[in-house]
Structures are given as C-alpha cells and as structure tokens.
C-alpha cells in the first residue's frame, strides 16, 4: 500500500547536469539584455495506465530529471464494483495475438523468400 505512494526521482547524467549548470551560470552573468538566455527546458507529462511520469528534457533531447509514481488501480470482482478493470486475460490475449502475428509474418516472409529463390533458380536455369 505504501509502495505505490512513492515518487521516484531520477536525475540526468552528471555531464548533462554540469553542462546545464554552466549554461545557466553563463546566462546569469550575461544578463537578460545580452544574448545569453537561460537554457530552454521542456516538461513532458506521461499519464499512463499504471503510473505517471514527468520528464524534463534539454534542447538536445537529453533527460535532465524525471519523476515517476504509480497510482491505485481498482480491479472489481463483481459487476457492481466501481473503478478501473484491467483484465489480465485480455492483456495476455493481446500479447498472444501479437506473438502469433509476428510468427505469422516471419513464416510468410520465409515462404515468400523461398518461393522467390526457387523462382529465380528456375529462371536462371531456363536462361542458361
């Protein structure tokens, strides 16, 4: 119960942070009138099905800082129970069908590939 209330903070790499601090210090020294403006940062809220993430990016697209937190999900047993249902069966079915699709596509490629080779082989043979 306590675990999901924890918000996990992750900071960017030391190189990214050092460079950001240097840019920021330079902009402060240059003043608002000068060309040096504070390094532009962009925030991104990713409100997902089981957790929420907030990530701050720099201009180069490096992660400067991020925080993540899970939220309560309600899995009702009866039809009258309220909340969010996530049926494992459903997810497994989605995963299974994806795997089946991938296998099918590979099988198809293989089949097509073999046919192509056979067909080319035949043609080469005929031409020769």
């Amino acid at each position, binding site marked *: 119960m306590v675990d999901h209330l924890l918000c996990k903070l992750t900071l960017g790499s030391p190189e990214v942070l050092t460079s950001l601090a240097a840019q920021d210090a330079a902009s402060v020294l240059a003043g608002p009138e000068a060309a040096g403006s504070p390094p532009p940062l962009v925030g991104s809220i990713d*409100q997902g099905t089981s957790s929420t993430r907030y990530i701050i990016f720099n201009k180069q697209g490096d992660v400067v800082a991020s925080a993540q937190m899970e939220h309560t999900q309600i899995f009702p047993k009866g039809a009258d129970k309220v909340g969010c249902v996530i049926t494992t069966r459903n997810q497994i079915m989605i995963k299974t069908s994806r795997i089946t699709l991938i296998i099918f596509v590979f099988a198809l490629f293989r089949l097509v590939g073999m046919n192509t080779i056979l067909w080319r082989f035949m043609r080469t043979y005929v031409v020769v």
Partner: protein
Amino acid sequence: MEIYENVCRCVNIAHEGLNEALKTTMTIKTVGITNQRETLVAWNSSTGQPYYNAIVWDDTRTTHTAREIAHEAPCVNSFTKDSDKLRAQTGLPLASYFSGTKLRWMLENVPLLRQDLQSESECQNVRFGTIDSWLVYNMTGTPNDKYRTGGIHVTDVTNASRWLLMDLKNLNWDETLVGIVAGKNNPKVPLSTLPQVLR
C-alpha cells in the same frame, strides 16, 4: 483526483530535485501531455469533483454496451457488419475499447450523472473528458475558487478520434454519432459537455 495529485507530485519532485542538484532555479518553456487515451472521466465543473472513477481503456465492462450500440446503429448497407456500422465516419470498429462506450456505461450506471444531465441548470456543468482533458482542466483553473470558473475544457484531435463520436471528415464531434452512442433511452448528451477539439 489521485491521478491529478500524482502529476503535481511528479512535477514538484522533478523540479525540486533538479534545482537542488544545480543549486539554482530552472524554468521550463512548455509542457506536453501524453496520456492513457481512451480512459474516460466525467466531472462536474461547479464542484470540480468526478462523478465516478475513471474507466480505463482496457476495462471490458462495456463489451455488452458496444454490442448494443452495434445493434442499434442505423444500417449502412447489407454487407456491413454490425460492428463496422460507424467505421466509415469514425474510423473505428464498435468495441469496448473506445471512450463512447464508457460514456454510455456511465449514463446507464451513475445516477447523479443522469440526474444532472436531465436538469436544465446542472446540465451545463457536466464535463466529459479523456485524461488529457481532465489534467488540462485541473491545471488551468481552480474549480473551488470564488467564481467556480474551473479550467478550460479541451482535448486534442488524436484523443478525440478515439471516442466513436468524432467525424473524421470535419474533425469535430457529430451530434448524430453522439445520439447513437449515448442511446435513445439515456439522457441527451449536449455537445457542450464534450471538450473542445483543438486542431
């Protein structure tokens, strides 16, 4: 409410963490939102309170609802499957996945929501939205302020396209689609209760 609070907590902790690490205050230019898409929230703008828990995209409680809509929707032609009746207009098959089926489920199962939609004065306070709408609404206003203005009620076109209520041709809510999906035995859902579609 928990989701919005968690967003605030994540934002605060990331910024506090960064400022502490750099020993300065960093500002950000802008914020983007990506969200769990078809998950639906209904709330009242005068109280700022949701009518019900959010119904998540993979919640299968509306499987039967989707079948009902498929059965009730007008026939396109005799070759079209029931589940494809709205596909030409919305691009979607009729399945429990999409927000419109969750909206209908709420109309049928949440008494206060039904009651408010049937009341002329309360009806204008009803808001439906996906999680992006709910977050923007909460981040841009203060539902409990003196004037109870709340925030802005918007969504983007890609999220709107997952409701079963948006016409792909004009990228806006379609009154006929709303009528079909909401069901004729349920209270009418005015377009003003849906978020403005930003394009």
